[in-house]
């Protein structure tokens, strides 16, 4: 019984550390006065209406969604072939790919990657949005490769060999046999990429340009000047959106674990 009491305490502490900030933000977004405070002194939906009607938030939200969507699709387009090659063939540099992919933490490359991409901006090789897109694709790609790779590893090669022996061209085998069986991995890869890109701050901070800012950057900038519950309201909306995507995916796919 002693043990279980301590376990219970640990559980409560862990939960409050993880959920506490979200709950505070959630309640603070209904605060009727114009300062962030907890507990709220009343109830209003004013801040929600306000942030949804502000054009700077609208514009950056659309940009963020667009970049998250395109970066996720691009990283799948690149990531699926890379994952396939890594799981089915042996070649030079395979170990390196596996290393990069299994530890995405070292990938963002705040140093090398950003310097290079910043260089793109200064040189005006690409537009700001394209540069943002390249940067986001680069950081979400490992997630895509990793998720697809783990699905492919669980699919025996002999299944493809069976299809080929029955007269299916390897490319056809990929679409008819492989893809339907790694569907869950592909969709969870997409969701992870989307959320990672959508929430990203460091890359966007370096690569945003005048008039082209992602939502998290606009939120940060806004917060520096206005310390009012509109930020809380926006955060609540974003958490809600992310949660909705994950729940929907779980419902549709029956995925219990989105790694």
């Amino acid at each position, binding site marked *: 019984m002693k043990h279980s009491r301590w376990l219970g305490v640990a559980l409560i502490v862990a939960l409050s550390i993880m959920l506490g900030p979200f709950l505070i933000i959630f309640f603070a977004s209904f605060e009727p006065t114009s300062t962030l405070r907890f507990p709220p002194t009343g109830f209003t939906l004013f801040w929600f209406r306000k942030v949804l009607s502000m054009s700077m938030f609208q514009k950056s939200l659309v940009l963020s969604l667009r970049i998250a969507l395109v970066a996720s699709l691009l990283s799948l387009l690149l990531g699926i072939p890379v994952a396939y090659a890594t799981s089915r063939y*042996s070649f030079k540099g395979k170990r390196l790919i596996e290393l990069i992919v299994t530890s995405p933490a070292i990938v963002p490359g705040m140093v090398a990657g950003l310097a290079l991409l910043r260089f793109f901006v200064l040189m005006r090789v690409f537009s700001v949005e394209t540069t943002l897109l390249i940067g986001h694709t680069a950081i979400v790609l490992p997630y895509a490769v990793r998720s697809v790779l783990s699905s492919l590893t669980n699919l*025996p090669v*002999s*299944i493809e*060999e*069976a*299809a*080929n*022996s*029955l*007269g*299916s*061209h*390897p490319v*056809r*085998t990929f679409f008819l*046999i492989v893809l*339907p*069986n790694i569907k869950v991995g592909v969709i969870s890869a997409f969701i992870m990429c989307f959320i990672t890109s959508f929430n990203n701050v460091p890359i966007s901070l370096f690569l945003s340009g005048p008039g082209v800012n992602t939502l998290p950057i606009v939120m940060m900038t806004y917060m520096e000047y206005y310390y009012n519950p509109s930020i809380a309201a926006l955060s609540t909306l974003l958490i809600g959106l992310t949660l909705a995507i994950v729940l929907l995916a779980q419902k549709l796919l029956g995925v219990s674990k989105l790694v």
Partner: protein
Amino acid sequence: MSFLKLENLTVAYGKDAPVLKNLNLSVEKGEFVSLLGPSGCGKTTTLRTIAGFLKPLSGRVLIGGKDYTNVPTHKRNIGVVFQNYALFPHMSVFENVAFGLRMRKIPRQEIEKKVRRALEMVGLAGFEKRLPSELSGGQQQRVAIARAIVIEPDLLLMDEPLSNLDANLRMEMRSEIKQLQKNLGITTVYVTHDQSEAIALSDRVVVMNSGKIEQVATPQEIFSNPKTSFVASFIGFQVLAVGTVTSIEENFAEVLREGKIYRARITGRVQLQDKVILFARPRKMRLTRHETQNCFQVQLISVLYQGETSLLVFKLGERQFSVEQDSAVSLPVGSNVFVHVPPEDLLALKEE
């Protein structure tokens, strides 16, 4: 003209040393040939090269007289049955079996008819709508077999198809596979490490060891006349002792061992003065109290009761071997006796 011909096949994985070295093998049309050997002997590699999953470094694969060495798998008309069944998890039993026919653009009605007939042949009529995950291992392997034969392949390749099944089912499937192959007359290459499976199923058995063929012969021939000491030990002969050949007449040799002469049958290549191993099967030896010709003095170290018969484990020098005999005869552990092996059951094979 043999139907399947492997000519000087050399196969390697990546830059490693070749797994197969200059392998030659011919299979007649309608024949059931087993590739038998321990793991790593190259039997699966051979099968995978015939299927086109692997490309040989050199040599050719001929099917029906045509060179298929560089033809990709999907253009070879080959049915493959895998150890892990390799069914398409997202497709029903019907769709699994129909897959090869769909790839061949066969009209819908005909596909329906052929799939039904194939499923009937493997005893799975009525299972069309099930998913592979809803079937037992034995049923899954039946689907895999139906899927491979429905395309009427030129060659049926089976890679240890029964090793994932439990013992009883393995026996049952064994005879089903044999009947099916006989009825359809499909030329079949079957990979296994189980000697009893190879002997029960095949018209001819190919015994392989470290990338080379040791012996190709009928099951009867392999069973009674192994040509090398590797084949002998792999198919159940036991090493009794080592000696030197002192004389040879026709099929028999006289072997000198510890001052005694033994008479043994020669089934492989043996010359005078060769060092040879003496082999015998557990059932072909008899215990005696008095020393006669072809006797080994041994000590009993344990008895394994098997019901009707018992396995008596003896020690001879550093080696151990067992003799199978009627359980009614009992002998105390530790007793010293003689084991007599008739000359026709004692094989002398060159030490490798």
